[in-house]
């Protein structure tokens, strides 16, 4: 049996007096496509941000690719991870943000090659060749020389996906990647992600309000409320036959708001 690529064990996250994650535990298997759904403030984005080390944790343990994310072993003592350890661990993980966060002063090509050249010491030519392949994959071969400000939201998000892929992470995190897009631009981003899910064995965690997409994309859906998993299972089960009342209420509201399931 293969070991989980991510193990979250009794994870707590507190912002001031607000408990965002409350003793959360779940595992993710390599290659699994996971959709995290739930009302806003349920802690799902916080999980992605914690995995990307953009937040600190208040308690518990996370293991990524067989190593502790926020802790390190020194002899038989367990210490909080230092920056070098975090840097090492981050190389397993890539993230795509709701608001793209492209580097506005760099061309599309430079956005993609910056990190591979700086953090992996890749030769510029090799990084550029790979960046062009990635741009072709996201359907933006003709935009290599463009600046981010010249792109539409959907194009920016596709560049952001290519930028994250350029580092060849084993785990990709997608944080509401279509929420900031105009409705007519959502589809082109989802198409890229579907192709990515079909063509690679990368582990993917997706936080989304696009229930139809979550249904189609995910192997497993986790429904969150108040920092805990209320219900989880295959998409058909969660979307067609949810057992928990809170899941049913949430899905009813989403459908009432005009989203497809």
């Amino acid at each position: 049996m293969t070991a989980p690529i991510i193990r979250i064990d009794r994870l707590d996250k507190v912002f001031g007096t607000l408990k965002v994650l409350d003793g959360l535990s779940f595992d993710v298997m390599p290659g699994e496509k996971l959709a995290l759904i739930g009302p806003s403030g349920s802690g799902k984005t916080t999980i992605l941000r914690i995995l990307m080390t953009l937040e600190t944790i208040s308690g518990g343990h996370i293991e990524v690719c067989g190593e502790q994310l926020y802790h390190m072993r020194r002899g038989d003592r367990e210490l909080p991870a230092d920056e070098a350890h975090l840097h090492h661990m981050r190389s397993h993980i890539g993230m795509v943000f709701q608001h793209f966060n492209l580097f506005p002063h760099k061309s599309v090509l430079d956005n993609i090659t910056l990190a591979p050249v700086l953090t992996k010491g890749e030769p510029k030519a090799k990084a550029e060749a790979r960046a062009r392949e990635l741009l072709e994959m996201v359907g933006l071969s003709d935009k290599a020389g463009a600046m981010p400000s010249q792109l539409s939201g959907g194009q920016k998000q596709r560049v952001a996906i290519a930028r994250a892929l350029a580092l060849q992470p084993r785990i990709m995190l997608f944080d509401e990647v279509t929420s900031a897009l105009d409705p007519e631009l959502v589809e082109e981003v989802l198409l890229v992600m579907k192709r990515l899910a079909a063509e690679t064995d990368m582990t993917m965690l997706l936080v989304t309000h696009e229930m139809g997409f979550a249904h189609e994309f995910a192997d497993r859906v986790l429904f969150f409320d108040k920092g805990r998993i209320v219900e989880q299972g295959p998409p058909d089960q969660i979307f067609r036959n949810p057992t928990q009342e809170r899941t049913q209420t949430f899905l009813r509201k989403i459908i009432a708001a005009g989203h497809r399931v």
Partner: protein
Amino acid sequence: MQWDWAFVAEITPTLLSGLKLTLLITLLSAMVAAALGLAFAIARRSPNRLVARPTGAFVEFIRGTPLLVQLYFIFYVLPDAGILLPPLVAGVIGMGLHYATYTAEVYRAGIENVPKGQWEAARATNLTMRQTWVHVVIPQAVPPMIPALANYLIAMFKETPLLSAITVLELMNQAKSVANSSYRYVEPMTLVGVFFLAMSLVSVVMLRWLERRYGRLGK
């Protein structure tokens, strides 16, 4: 009071050499202020309180005391501690240090202007802190600061006469010595004013251009 053109012609070369020194001091001090200000701004943001707090206190101290006092201190008091600096060096250090505390504020505003998402994207692509500063934050933070920095450059230029107090033979000091030896103040002081005005006018035109080119901070 009579205006003597012959006297003007006679003293102009001396004053021009003073002007040259004034420009040199401005340029060197500006370089010190630009570099040191950035260092102050970054140190004040350090997560390490042992770095951030003393830097903050030092910056407030420099800003809270007059430049003239600082110049006296560097030039006349430091020698007691065995640090003897030539007037020009002392002047450049004093002016550079003083204005660095102001440029640090400009840098601070510029750095805070860079959205949080940029830091997060840098972290998500696994850049080190240093790479994040060099490749992501500074290139975005600096252009909007340029007009404000240029403003301080003009201010520094107009403060250079203070260096006459520590015997630097810049424009004002040259004019004073000419005036003191000839007992004529009208021409030298008028020329000093005219030179400063001319340079300032050029700078203001340049500044307007920079503002159009790079926009204003916080716009």
